[in-house]
């Protein structure tokens, strides 16, 4: 037992994974024609990889996510900095950000489809739009840490305006941007997939929508598995490290990515 607890992967985690696989196989056997066997999903996955479809669609979706993410993050950073530095701006943007955060993405996708039609711009637009509030909130929260007390300390020690920016505001901003990017990365990918699924002619989302018409559940599972990989990579590589770093000195909830559909 002791030897296991020291290692990084815990035995019960593996047990959980195995249990999930077994449950899947069991339901596949007991519900034939509804749930595909693991092997069928595996061969679908292999086929996707061999024909190059996997890499092509993954590339398209990732590119759209990243484009949307960069534009949305830039705008969120801009508005967030303004709101962080000047309280009235914070209240000014509050209704807009509140509406955006509580709007179902699916509705925005529909609007965007009416406006921009089906194509590459629509998913990028939706992704960017939903990245803005994530980055905005992160930056505003980050700047809030530079509170009146820190500024008073700076004033008492006669710290120059330049040094104030360099030593206090910029580090706070940098951390906030990092956090915002990590949390927005997962969101961005989800929104891209959703937009593609509802109205695009390529990308992973589109490929998923096609399986619906072909009733190819195994292929759909294969795509889901790919999304899962992307999601896990984002979680493990960006969200978890950033969250655990931040938790050392302030309260963060690492489920921030979970609240976006």
């Amino acid at each position, binding site marked *: 037992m002791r030897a296991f607890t020291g290692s990084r992967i815990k035995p019960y985690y593996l047990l959980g994974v195995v249990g999930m696989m077994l449950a899947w196989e069991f339901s596949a056997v007991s519900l034939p024609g509804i749930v595909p066997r693991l092997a069928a999903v595996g061969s679908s996955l292999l086929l996707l990889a061999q024909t190059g479809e996997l890499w092509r669609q993954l590339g398209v979706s990732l590119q759209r996510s990243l484009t949307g993410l960069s534009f949305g993050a830039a705008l969120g950073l801009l508005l967030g900095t303004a709101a962080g530095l000047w309280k009235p701006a914070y209240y000014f943007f509050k209704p807009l950000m509140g509406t955006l955060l509580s709007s179902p993405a699916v509705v925005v996708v529909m609007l965007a489809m009416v406006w921009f039609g089906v194509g590459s711009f629509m998913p990028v637009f939706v992704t960017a739009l939903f990245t803005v509030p994530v980055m905005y909130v992160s930056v505003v929260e980050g700047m809030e840490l530079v509170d009146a007390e820190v500024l008073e300390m700076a004033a008492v020690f006669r710290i120059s305006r330049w040094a104030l920016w360099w030593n206090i505001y910029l580090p706070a901003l940098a951390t906030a941007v990092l956090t915002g990017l990590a949390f927005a990365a997962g969101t961005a*990918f989800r929104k891209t997939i959703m937009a593609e699924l509802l109205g695009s002619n390529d990308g992973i989302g589109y490929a998923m929508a096609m399986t619906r018409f072909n009733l190819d559940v195994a292929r759909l599972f294969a795509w889901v598995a790919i999304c899962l990989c992307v999601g896990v990579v984002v979680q493990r590589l960006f969200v978890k490290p950033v969250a655990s770093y931040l938790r050392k000195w302030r309260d963060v909830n690492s489920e921030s990515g979970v609240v976006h559909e």
Partner: protein
Amino acid sequence: MSNFWNARKVLPFLWMATGVVAFTVVWQLMSNSYGPLLVATPSETMVAVTRLLTSPATLAAFARTLGRVLLALGLQIVSGVASGVLAGLYPWVEDLLRPVIDALVAVPPVALTLLVILMFGSGDYQVAATALALGFPLLYTGTVRAVRSVDRSMLEMFRAFRLPRTTQLLVGYLPATLYALIPSILLATGLTLRLVVMAEVMVGGGSGIGQSLSEARVHMATAEIFAWLLVMAATVLMIEGTLLYLVKSHLLKWQARR
């Protein structure tokens, strides 16, 4: 002194109102330049809002969606709290459930919805099940954290004074867990509404808000879509506000008065 406090209370609202007015103006300008067909005007949208809130058909759709939301939310809370308490008390349960949670967190919600539709068809339970599966991790992790946050020193106090285990659960664990769980429940409410609407849209030919939205899109009725957006945002705000109010006035008196 009293002027100072008033200014501090009133100014934020003034700025928020300015924000609303400014965005309405921008909205009006947009609809002027792109035409009311693509961007419905604010006044058209307001008319659509009243139409939504007075027509029996849309009210029924609204009620249908809310019913699904409540069903899914209730199931999320029950299952999330039950498994979260176990995982909070026994770390091996947490390890065991971690892969399931990881998968549910990592999977894009649309993909899971599509899977459910493709395998089990569409209907009330399917929509609720999708929302349940996708909202579950939020309440589960919230509960795990809440249970862990119960102070060990508090438990020692209960033991030192020889208080019975039921008292410890009811007076100690329950309030502590509920309090720590409130943010998760608030987040889950908005999330579940969005998930249910998404599932309804994807099911197609279903019912509820999602169905109305799909029809509005087909008819390019942007006023209707805008109106639903506003109604949903207001609904989430109202539910959250009511919950917060109840919580603050009853459970959290001890904190609010600070």
